[in-house]
Structure formats: C-alpha cells, structure tokens
C-alpha cells in the first residue's frame, strides 16, 4: 500500500532556489553542496562530488536509455476512471487532474516499444510524480498489455519501477492489478525472452510485491528504498527505530534480493550487455 506522500516527486530538490542571472541552483541530497541545474543535467542528476543519485523524470530516463530517446507509446489512451467515487476530502478525479498537470503525464506509468543499443524492447517506466507512481487500474492495464504485447511480438521487457504501491483511491481493484500484472508476466516467461526489472527510488508496497523483484535480472539504482512495508509502517508497528541503510539497495543486495547495483553512468551499457547475453532482440 502506498504510504509515501505523493507531493514529493523530487526528494533532495527541496531547496531549489532561483537567483537572478545565475539560473537554478539545487542543493545535493547527499552531501549538501550547491550544484547548478545545468551541471546536474550534464551528469544525469548525479552529484559530481559525492555520487548521490537524484531522482530523474521518465523523460530523462528515455533520453538516458533509449536509442534516440524515442518511445513509440502504447496505450496512452487508457485513462483513469473513478470506480469507487472516492472522496477523502478531495475527490479522486480532482487529484487525478492535479497529478496530470504536475507530471505532464496521463497516468503513473508510460509504456511502449523502443530500442536499447539496437535491441528492440518493450519498455515501461513508472511516473513517481503522478500520485506517487501508485498502481491503479490504468497502471495495471498498461503493464499487463506491455507483457502481453511482448509475448506476442517476442520482445524483451525492460521495466523501471518507482512507486509507493497500490493506489488506495481505487481500493480492491488496485490490489487486483498485482494479480493481473504478475499473471501476464508469468505467461510472458514462456517465450523465453528476458525480463529485466530496474528498481528506482522508491519501490514499495504492492508494486514491490508484484513485478518489481520478479525479473530474470533485478537491477537497482544506488541508495534506492525498496521493500514491502514502508519504513514508517514498520517503525509504528514494532515501535522501534530502523537500522541505518535498512531497505536500501545495498541492504537488498546483501540479502540476495537483487543482482546488481548499477550507477546511472553504467545503466545503458549494463542493459545492453544483458540483452545480448539473454538473446534479447535481433531475433
């Protein structure tokens, strides 16, 4: 379940300041040094001083990973409804409208066909700035169709996760998307094409407990928070404080849950080598 606030898509950028004539400055979420937006943009939002990985938008990820930054979008027309007519003081429809404006996206995942170093792939990326990347019916449907088309077209799947979990505002139907996406993934296995999962910061709840850790290969970014129960839930349940680095990438690797921690600078080359080893594309 999503226990992360949906208002903070850019953790680490909270101290964004504008000063006349000098462009935008950002304070590094790792070491606190002040960086220009341009410098950050040049390094794919990795601090040149301490290596801290600041969150990137799906558009940045497309530019980093996909040939020509190009994504042939699938299922953008699949749009959210309001099955429970959910209202928590603010209506769900209103929240959706705000999320669309904030993120510039139609829902919390973008999917489509792309190429990675010449390998054709079915590609998806969660949109954390859209209601915390939460999985409702649209995310479930788009991810399910992604695996179904990859099955039909015999394409490898590369899926980037960044989500607080299931979307509360769609209730039980959100929970059912876990079943739907995982069932589609299980069918995809039969075509013997690789499924490479990449977990970004953060990947928790129902998304962590569905497709995120079921990759043939699981990759993670440095220092990403990945786990089933959010740290606050665990702290309040057990009335304890959590150890340093709990549920972070290094913790997951040490506990055998992920294959590799891959810095952004090596992400595309790592994917490329994996795709060639596992027979992705060029079929």
């Amino acid at each position: 379940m999503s226990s992360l606030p949906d208002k903070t898509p850019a953790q680490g950028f909270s101290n964004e300041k504008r000063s006349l004539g000098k462009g935008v400055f950002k304070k590094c979420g790792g070491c606190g040094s002040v960086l220009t937006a341009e410098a950050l943009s040049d390094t794919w939002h990795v601090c040149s001083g301490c290596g801290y990985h600041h969150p990137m938008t799906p558009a940045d990820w497309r530019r980093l990973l996909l040939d020509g930054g190009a994504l042939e979008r699938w299922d953008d027309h699949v749009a959210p409804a309001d099955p429970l007519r959910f209202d928590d003081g603010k209506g769900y429809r209103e929240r959706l409208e705000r999320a669309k404006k904030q993120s510039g996206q139609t829902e919390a995942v973008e999917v489509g066909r792309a190429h990675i170093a010449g390998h054709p792939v079915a590609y998806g990326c969660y949109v954390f700035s859209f209601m915390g990347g939460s999985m409702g019916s649209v995310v479930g449907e788009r991810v399910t169709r992604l695996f179904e088309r990859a099955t039909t077209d015999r394409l490898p799947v590369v899926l980037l996760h960044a989500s607080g979990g299931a979307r509360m505002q769609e209730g039980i139907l959100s929970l059912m998307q876990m079943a739907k996406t995982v069932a589609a993934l299980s069918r995809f296995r039969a075509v013997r094409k690789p499924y490479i999962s990449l977990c970004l910061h953060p990947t928790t709840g129902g998304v962590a407990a569905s497709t995120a850790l079921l990759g043939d290969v699981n990759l993670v970014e440095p220092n990403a928070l990945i786990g089933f129960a959010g740290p606050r839930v665990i702290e309040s349940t057990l009335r304890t404080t959590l150890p340093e680095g709990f549920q972070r990438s290094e913790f997951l690797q040490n506990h055998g849950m992920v294959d590799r921690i891959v810095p952004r600078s090596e992400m595309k080359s790592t994917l490329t080598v994996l795709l060639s080893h596992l027979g992705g594309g060029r079929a």
Partner: protein
Amino acid sequence: MAHVLAFEKPVVELVGRVRELRELAHADARLAPELKRLEEKAAKLAREMFSKLEPMQKVQLSRHPNRPYTLDYFARLFDDFIELSGDRCFAEDASLVGGLARYHDRSVVVIGHQKGRSTKENMVRNFGMPNPEGYRKAIRLYELADRFRLPVLAFVDTPGAFPGIEAEERGQAEAIAHAIEVMASIGVPVVTTVIGEGGSGGALALGIGNRVLILEFSYYSVISPEGCAAILWKDGSLAPRAAERLKITAPDLLELGCVDAIVDEPPGGAHQDHDDAARRLDRALWEALVSLDGLSPDELTADRYQRFRRLGSFVA
C-alpha cells in the same frame, strides 16, 4: 469465551435463546415444531438486524475472537488431513498452515492463514501474519498440487503480511510476488475463500483462484481501514469512514467483480455456530470445485488468467 460486541448483543441473546430451546426440544420431541418455527423466526430477525450493519461493524465481525479460523474449517470439511511444514529454505511459519486432505471423495491441497485464539496461541501464529517463509511454503504446496494434479483450496484470513525487519531482510515482497506468480500458473483447479480478514498483498498470495468466495461478514481490502485513515486523515480513529469509502464488504466486492459468490453465515455470524458455518461453506465450496470439472490444465490456467485479466476500471 463469551466475547460480545456491543452492536451484536440483541442478536447474540436471540441466538442464545434458540440454542436453549434446541436443548429442551432434544429431550421432548413435542417441542420440535415449535422449535422449528422459532428458529426460522430468529434467523429472520437476526438477518434483519445484521442487514443494517456498517462496513466497520462487519470488519469487527471478521475479526471476532470466536470466529472460526482455517483449522476449524479443516476439521469440519476434510478427512485425512496431513499437515506439511516448512519452506525448505529457512523456517516453518505457523501463521500459514497447509497440507494434504480429502474433501468428499477427492484428495486436495489445502492452505490457509491461521490466527491464534489466545495470546499464547498468537505468539505461535503471529496473529495470522506470515513472514516470507510462510509464502515460500505456499509456493511449495502450489507446486506440489500442480505436479500431482490436485485441486487447491485456499482460506484467507490475515490482517496482512507481517511488517517486520526480518521479514524485509528475507524478502517479503519477493515471496508474495512469487507466490502470486506460481498460484496464477498452476494447471489445477483453485478455489479461494475469504473466511475472515482479507488484508492486502498478504491475502492475495492465497487469492488467485478460478473461483473466489467470501463469507458474508468478511472483508477484502488493499489496506486496513485503520491504515487508510492514518494515511488520508492522519487519524486511525476515522477507520469507520475509511471502511465505508474503500468498498470492502462482501456485497461491494461482488459488485466490483473481485469475488464470485457470497457464502451466507449462520444467524448472528459464523462465530455463533462453527458447524453450521462449515456446512454452509461446504455447499458453496463443493459447487465451485465441481464447476471446474472437465477443464484441462491449460484451460484451468487460462480460466484463472481471464478471471483476473478483466478486473479494473478505466476508460479506453
């Protein structure tokens, strides 16, 4: 033993009086017609009283300390139950029980969350909240069922998967996801029944059935009402409001297509009469199971795929 919720008091008294009469009628056959008339009247009254329950009151019933748990149903529904233990990786998890059993004339694999009825029992059962090893035992049992072509009967009754430090260290998310994948792919009939609490992903790992049944006063939700209220309104005491908004009661779930049938409970709820509750479940469970007769392994997997494939609400 006599744990009574405030709102169920009148119904409990009514059911109690019928029970007394039943004992009297046992000794005096002349009372039988009168008893039958009263039983019917009481059942009708109890049903009327409970028809107006708020969603949160149903949640309270689903958590009732006298409610029948998985092993209570196993004892009443199955013969030759052989419990199987352990995940072959790390540990045995007593919050999730399973094994082989005979259901009518058929051998089946049975599995379910198991709560404890006392504090001492709950030390062992962890309040029905499995750790990863529980889900890995479930995976073992699903695979066993697939290999020996045995149907799976699953019983859901959990507040959720355990949110603990060690659970995270051992991969709670992966264990649940993997259980869902295996349960989705096996080529045998699968019937899931929500008998109490259907708490989120921890429930779903036993929830991928060709048919999904729910007891009348059970709930199934993406998050507990308390958790939802804490996130939305920073106030867990607003759980009744969350319970209403989340649409988690049996009739809501039927309307949303997430369950296929509601199993009526005895007057006053399953905790009033475990034997009667089991008899009612037996009828629905058997009907669901035989409805899958004649399907090939591939057809069974495809049927399960289609059942979940259509769930969701969107505009396209």
